[in-house]
C-alpha cells in the first residue's frame, strides 16, 4: 500500500498553559512524505522532532490540524485506527499485561470475530517464522518475559494479522546492544519476506540506515531531507543533515572564501580549480568529516596545525583518531597509525568537503557520493 502524507500540521496545546496555540511550536510543521508500495522508510531525527507523532498520525491515533494522510488514494481522516488494517510495534512493546503471549496474539482475532482455529493456525505460522523457542513465549505471562522476549511477542502480534502497513515506533531501542543487532537482522528479514510498506521510527542513525530503503530526516516538526543514505551523507541539504549522519562528529570550520582560497583563522588553503569556480567569495562554513582530512607535509605553509588533545586508537575498526582543535574548531580526524601529536598539519580533502552558508545552514556545495561506489 502506498502512503502519502500531504502537508500535515499538528500542534499540541500544553496542559495548563495559558498560551494560545499560536505561540506553541508545532509538533509537525507542514510535513509531506511519500512512501511507495512495499518500501521501508526510516523516519529519523533527534528527540522531540515529531517523528513519533507523525507515526501515530499515520496510524490514526492522532488527528492532524491540517493536511491529509492518504492510504493509496483514500483520504483516511475519517477512518478510525481500528479499521485501518495496520500493525504497530511500540517502543515499550505495549503488551497486554493480563494476557499470556498467545492471548496478545489472539486479541485481534477475538475482536474481529474470527474463528478460534484461524487464530491458532496464524499463531502457529508466526511462531515458525519467529524461530526457535517462540512458542514457549506464547504460553507465558507477558510480564514475566525479558525485554527481548517481549519485543518478539510484540512484533509477532503486529505481524499476525497480515497488516497492509507496518508502523514501528523505536521498537528495539530498549534492548541491549548485542540483542539489538540480532533483532535488527531478524526484523529486516521479516520486512523483506512480507514486502509490506513500513514506517520505521528511530533516533539511531545506524538503525535507520540498516532498516530503511530511504531515510526521512526530521527536525523540529519539519522534514529536512528524504533520500537514500548516500544522498543524505554525501549530498546533505544543509549543515544539520551533514552533522546528524556519521558516527563521529563533523568538523565545522568557520571560514572565508576569497582569492580562490579558503581562509580559516590564520591558515589558508588554496582551492582546486573546479571548486574555486563554483564558490562565490564570502564567509562560509566548511564541513569536513573525520575521514576527509589529509595529513600535510611538515614544511610550513602547508596545512593547518592541529592542537591535539588525545590520540585514540580503535582496534576493532583499525583506526587511529586524533581529537583536538583545527583553526579554532573542534575536530576529530582519522590519521594514519603511528601518528604523533606533535606537528600534525592537516588539509581538508576538497573532494569530500562540504560548504554551507555562514548564516543559514543551506548547503552551497556538497561533494556527492564518491566515484568508487
Amino acid at each position, binding site marked *: 500500500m502506498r502512503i502519502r502524507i500531504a502537508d500535515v500540521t499538528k500542534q499540541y496545546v500544553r496542559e495548563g498553559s495559558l498560551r494560545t496555540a499560536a505561540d506553541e511550536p508545532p509538533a509537525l510543521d507542514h510535513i509531506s512524505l511519500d512512501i511507495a508500495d512495499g518500501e521501508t522508510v526510516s523516519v529519523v531525527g533527534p528527540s522531540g522532532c515529531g517523528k513519533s507523532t507523525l507515526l501515530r498520525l499515520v*496510524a490514526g491515533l492522532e488527528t492532524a490540524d491540517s493536511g491529509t494522510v492518504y492510504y493509496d488514494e483514500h483520504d483516511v481522516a475519517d477512518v478510525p*485506527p481500528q479499521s*485501518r488494517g495496520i500493525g*504497530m510495534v511500540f517502543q515499550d512493546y505495549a503488551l497486554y499485561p493480563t494476557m499470556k503471549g498467545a492471548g496478545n496474539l489472539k486479541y485481534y482475532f477475538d475482536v474481529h470475530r474470527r474463528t478460534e482455529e484461524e487464530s491458532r493456525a496464524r499463531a502457529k505460522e508466526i511462531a515458525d517464522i519467529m524461530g526457535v523457542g517462540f512458542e514457549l513465549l506464547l504460553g507465558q505471562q507477558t510480564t514475566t518475559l525479558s525485554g527481548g522476549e517481549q519485543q518478539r511477542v510484540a512484533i509477532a*502480534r503486529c505481524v499476525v494479522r497480515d497488516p497492509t502497513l507496518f508502523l514501528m515506533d523505536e521498537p528495539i531501542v530498549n534492548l541491549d546492544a548485542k540483542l539489538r543487532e540480532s533483532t535488527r537482522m531478524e526484523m529486516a528479514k521479516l520486512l523483506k519476506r512480507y514486502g509490506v510498506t513500513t514506517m520505521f521510527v528511530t533516533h539511531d542513525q545506524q538503525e535507520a540506515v540498516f532498516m530503511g530503503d530511504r531515510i526521512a530526516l526530521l527536525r523540529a516538526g519539519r522534514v529536512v531531507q528524504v533520500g537514500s543514505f548516500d544522498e543524505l551523507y554525501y549530498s546533505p541539504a544543509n549543515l544539520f543533515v551533514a552533522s546528524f549522519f556519521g558516527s563521529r562528529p563533523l568538523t565545522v570550520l568557520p571560514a572565508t572564501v576569497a582569492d580562490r582560497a579558503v581562509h580559516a583563522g590564520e591558515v589558508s588553503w588554496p582551492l582546486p580549480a573546479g571548486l574555486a569556480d563554483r564558490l562565490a567569495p564570502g564567509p562560509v562554513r566548511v564541513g569536513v568529516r573525520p575521514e576527509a582530512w589529509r595529513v600535510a607535509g611538515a614544511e610550513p605553509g602547508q596545512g593547518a596545525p592541529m592542537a591535539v588533545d588525545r590520540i585514540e586508537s580503535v582496534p576493532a575498526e583499525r583506526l587511529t583518531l586524533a581529537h583536538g582543535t583545527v583553526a579554532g574548531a573542534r575536530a576529530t580526524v582519522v590519521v594514519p597509525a603511528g601518528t604523533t601529536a606533535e606537528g600534525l598539519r592537516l588539509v581538508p580533502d576538497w573532494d569530500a568537503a562540504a560548504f554551507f552558508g555562514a548564516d543559514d545552514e543551506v548547503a552551497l556545495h556538497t561533494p556527492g557520493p564518491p566515484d568508487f561506489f
Partner: protein
Amino acid sequence: MPALLPKVGMRQPKLRYSRAAIAGFLGIGVLLHLLPFYYIISTSLKPGAEVVRNPPTFIPSAITFDAWKLVLRIGDESQIVQLVKEPFWVYFANSAFITVIAVGIGLPVTALAAYANSKLQSGRGARVSFLFFIGTMMVPFVVTLVPMYLLTLNFPFTMPDAPMIPGTDTEFPTLRLWDTPWAVILPAIFVPFNFLLFKGFFDTIPNSVINAARVDGGSELNIFRRIVMPMAVPVFAVTAYMSFGSVWDNFLWQLVTLQSPEKVTMSVATYQLIERLSTAGSTGGGAAAQAEGMGDLLNSGLTWNGMMVLAILQSIPIFIAFLVCREYLLRGIKIRGLK
C-alpha cells in the same frame, strides 16, 4: 507481614527485641479491636436481666438464645410490645437490595467515568471535568443534606412543592424519589473518592497499551472490558468493598429519605429500636408507667442483648464482603497505600 517483620538479620539481638516489641504492640492492637466484638457476641448471649446489671459481667452467667429468637420474631404482632412493624428480614432485605444495586450500578459508572477522564479526554476538558468531580468531595454532606432531601421530593426541582407550568394551573410533572429505595441508590452511584482511585490507577496504564488495542481493532468499550478491567481488579475490589460498606452502614441519609416501615433499612430500624427502647414507657408519664413499660420489654426479652444481635447481623454482610475482597484488598493496599 513479611514487609513489617522481615526474617533478615534476626540473629541481631537488637532486631529480635524490636521485632518482639512490634509483635507485642500489634497483638495489643488486635486485642483492642477484638474486644468490642467479644462483648457484642457475649452480650447477645446473655439473659435479658443480666444485660442491664451493674457492674456489667464480662462472661455470661448463662448462655441463652432468647435474644436471637426474639430478634427473628421482632415484627410479630403477637408480641407483648410490638417494637417495629415489620419482621427483621424485611429490613435486612431492604438494605441488601439498596446496597447491591448501588454498588452494582455505581462501580461500572464510576470506573467508566474515570477511564474516560483518564484516557479519552485530554487537555483542558479533562482537567475541568476532573476538578468538577473532585470538587464534589469538598462539599460536606451536611451542607447538601437539605437540598438533596428537597430534590428527592420533586425531582428534578429543589423545592418542597413542584412549580406551576406558567400560564396554567397544573404543576410540572416531577418524579417523587422520596421514600423509595432509589432515593438512597441514586446519590450513591457516583462516588468521587472511588473516581479518584480509579483515575489514579488508569493514569498508570501506558497509553501505548490502549493504542495497541485500538490498532488491534478493539472498540473503546471492548478495550475497557478486555484489557483495562483485568488490570484493575484490585482497584475494583477496593472500591467495591468501600462503597459496599459506606452504603450498607449509611444511616443519616437513609433516615431522612426512608419513612414507610416496610422500606426502612437495617441501620434505620436498629436506630428506631434503640429509640423505642430508651423511651418506652415514658410516654405514659409517671415512674410507675415507665417501670411497667420497662418491665414489659424485659419480659419480652429485648434489651441491649437484642441490639447486639442486630449489630452482629448488620456486620455480617460487611464481613462477608471483606472475605470476598480480602486477597485483592491486601494487594490493593500494598499497591496504593490505601487507608
